[in-house]
């Protein structure tokens, strides 16, 4: 395939051109309540062509091999159309790579039958459905196995396989017309072993959903909070992580100024690292989708900005090192700057001591989605507790937090000594990235705006 790709772009009239072919095999099994809704495996493939000409840069995606010549032509035409009236695109220089990566899976999902995958999903689904007052579930077994072939006119040639599995969804508790739901998820990029013997996870999620039926909605206001590792992960990903993606800030001069290297953004206790190379994590990959080996990037050290995530284009634009973070959802998309694994470094005290330091406030648990818009962010917590005098009191629900990145990073006061990384990714930024891993310890933040219902 690599030789075929080289031929496809060999005659292009461009200063630079690359092509990525990808075969994506997916297996999906879904259940709604006690009913199986979908089960099967499928395979799709497609090509992404990118061309640079006279400072213009353009991309084209096609699904059929017969359309590749038109894609090459369109990419060059698009680049030419941009040239002279747009940004003068330069790609940061990189050494050509001849690469191959095949993950060492603990149980290759390709070797497991569809029947066994259905049985596993059913087992966890029924563990939840069999609990008292559980009204419904929506659960999905998802397996995405991508084999990628990348060739560039600079001589880079890479074949890489990335494979993720998950069992995830929601469990809904109901009583007298009132429902409460929480999310449940296990998974990773380490093979089927990530999914086995996880009964306790699903049992606990069903129990939390039921407990929420008796919880009170949080009263909107400004609180001091401790967020647990799951929520910390969402917070670091949403509030800071996206802001460290160079393409998010590149066209916004005030934001670029605020995010200048060596700026003091956070409190002294805050250290954040983008480490996609942590083994066995959902965010792990070796080469990004423009053929650059990924690097570990310290983004913030003791509150001071020290790094940023880049594509080759943004690295050149910012005059900073390439990092290998230009990633596409699949063959239907051009790559853009994305996070792999990002985490907040843990502290040295116990959770108990962290709550004592909090005093009165809220202990908020487990992310329920989040979103960022420049320096503003919001994310939901699946449940939480009122804390009085450092002691956990009654459960609360319907919790959403909003904040400003710069204010909040300076309001981080302490973290505990236990870090957890997410098992499942899923970040939308025009396209989905299921390999966005994140995490951290429990974190004490002062003065958060919490919206209740």
């Amino acid at each position, binding site marked *: 395939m690599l030789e075929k790709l080289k031929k496809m772009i060999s005659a292009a009239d461009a200063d630079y051109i690359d092509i990525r072919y990808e075969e994506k095999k997916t297996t999906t099994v879904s259940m709604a*309540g006690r009913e199986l809704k979908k089960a099967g495996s499928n395979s799709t493939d497609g090509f992404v062509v990118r061309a640079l000409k006279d400072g213009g840069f353009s991309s084209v*995606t096609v699904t059929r091999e017969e359309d590749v010549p038109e894609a090459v032509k369109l990419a060059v035409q698009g680049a030419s159309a*941009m040239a002279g009236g747009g940004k003068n695109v330069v790609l940061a220089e990189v050494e050509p790579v001849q690469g191959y990566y095949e993950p060492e899976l603990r149980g290759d999902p390709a070797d497991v039958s569809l029947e066994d995958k259905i049985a596993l999903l059913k087992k966890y689904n029924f563990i939840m459905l069999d609990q008292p007052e559980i009204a419904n579930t929506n659960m999905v077994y998802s397996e995405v196995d991508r084999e990628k072939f990348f060739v560039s006119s600079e001589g880079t040639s890479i074949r890489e396989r990335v494979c993720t599995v998950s069992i995830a969804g929601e469990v809904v508790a109901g009583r007298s017309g009132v429902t409460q739901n929480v999310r449940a998820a296990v998974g990773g990029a380490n093979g089927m072993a990530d999914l086995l013997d996880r009964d306790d996870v699903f049992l606990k999620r069903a129990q939390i959903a039921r407990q929420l039926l008796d919880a009170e909605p949080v009263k*909107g206001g400004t609180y001091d909070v401790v967020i647990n590792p799951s929520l910390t992960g969402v917070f670091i990903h949403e509030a800071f992580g996206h802001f460290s993606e160079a393409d998010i800030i590149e066209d916004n001069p005030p934001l670029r100024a605020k995010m200048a290297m060596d700026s003091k953004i956070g409190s002294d206790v805050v250290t954040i690292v983008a480490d996609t190379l942590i083994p066995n994590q959902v965010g792990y990959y070796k080469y990004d989708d423009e053929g650059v080996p990924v690097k570990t990037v310290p983004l913030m050290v003791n509150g001071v900005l020290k790094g940023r995530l880049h594509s080759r284009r943004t690295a050149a634009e910012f005059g900073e090192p390439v990092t290998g973070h230009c990633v596409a959802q699949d063959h239907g998309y051009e790559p853009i700057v994305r996070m792999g694994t990002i985490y907040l470094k843990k502290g040295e005290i116990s959770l108990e001591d962290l709550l004592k330091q909090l005093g009165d406030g809220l202990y908020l648990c487990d992310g329920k989605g989040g979103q960022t818009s420049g320096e503003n962010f*919001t*994310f939901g917590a699946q449940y939480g507790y009122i804390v009085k005098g450092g002691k956990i009191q009654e459960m609360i629900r319907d919790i959403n937090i909003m904040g400003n990145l710069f204010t909040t990073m300076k309001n981080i006061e302490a973290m505990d000594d236990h870090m957890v990384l997410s098992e499942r990714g899923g970040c939308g930024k025009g396209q989905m990235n299921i390999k966005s891993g994140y995490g951290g310890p429990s974190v004490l933040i002062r003065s958060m705006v919490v919206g209740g219902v």
Partner: protein
Amino acid sequence: MEKLLKIAESKGCRAEVYSLREKSVGMSKVNGAVSEVSASIQYGVSLRIIKDGKLGFAYTKNLIDREQLVENALASLKAGVDADYDFPASGSVNFTEDYHGEVESMSFPEMRKSVEQVEELYSGMKQGVLEVGAGCGTSETRIINTSGADLRQKDSSVYASGMMIYPGTSSGIRNIFYSSSSVSPFAPDAERAVDFFNSSLPEVEIGDSRMKVMFAPDSMYALTWRLGVATSAKAFYEKVSPLLNKRDQQIVSSRLSFISDPASDTTGRRVFDDEGVKTQRLPVVENGIFKAVYNNLDYASKTGEKPVGTGFRGGMWGGDRISMTPAPSLSHANFAYGDKSFQEMLAMIDRGVIIYGALGAHSGNILNGDLSIGLNPGLYVENGRVTGRVKDAMMAGNIYEMLSKVIAVESAAHYTDSMFTNPAILLDDISVVGS
């Protein structure tokens, strides 16, 4: 496609073949410089089969090996997914009214000209970042099934957009202009947006209070999402909808009607849904009264109701239609117009906010109708005039309670980024939490 159908039929299956070919080209410009040029040609075929009351499904982006595709669908029968329905005998339709051939040949220079025209509309903005874009595309859908249906639809679309972003942020005010042939940006919408943008440059701290809240068309999706989840036949079949026993009852203000009408949708008409069922006008909520649930073939069968032509592929945020099976969908539903102009509604606000963007609309208990969103941006209004934008503020409530407090609905609708065309609505006495 016919060969594929025959192979499936020869294996004793009822079958449906869905094919889609889409071509699109787009260009965007940031602060006067072209920032992105991209194109896409996507093709795909998906196959659903029903055998012995069970459903099988398979898809491909390259229809090379038809036998293998049928084998994949047959293999998925093992899952035992029930299918107590047949594919509809919808006859033959070839709908091309929204296809304009000239769109196929739009060139990059033409697109650049279109972008520059949009850019001109926003020349009055005083500060911030201006993002403009333009694009065009065509799509061809065909559905054939073993009940004899042969349904084709070919569309073209052209869009232009402008977004003014506040200095130092990523939030702003956006306009979308859309047509099936050549797009003509609507200058009054852009002028109002520029005026509001300039007036809302100062940040305002509002504290916690109750006030009037206007949902601009761009943020209405946060409401329709929750209403849609609760009125789906899926939520009724699973008995988890908060509206289970409320059909024909008043659930929101009588000023509101929420109607699915795919054949009249100005952002892409559909005369049949993605299962080949003829679409129809379906008032889900009419004058505040909950009238109907929407379904697909599967949930129509399960709930004992007739299919209403709302089985569409693609999720809330779009998605790959080939790889997704049809589900109950309100992707062509909008709120009906009211009787007040936007300016009249603005004049009704003594103190309040206009929500132009909802941050975090996907979190919270959506099924229950709970909503807790960041105002991003939220334009602060005093005595009918925009005087700033609120800093770090959230709005929270339950949509059924909130939508009972509607005091005005706009007499026009606007295209939005989410491709819904909604009017603005004005609510009274809503909790807003600010810094």
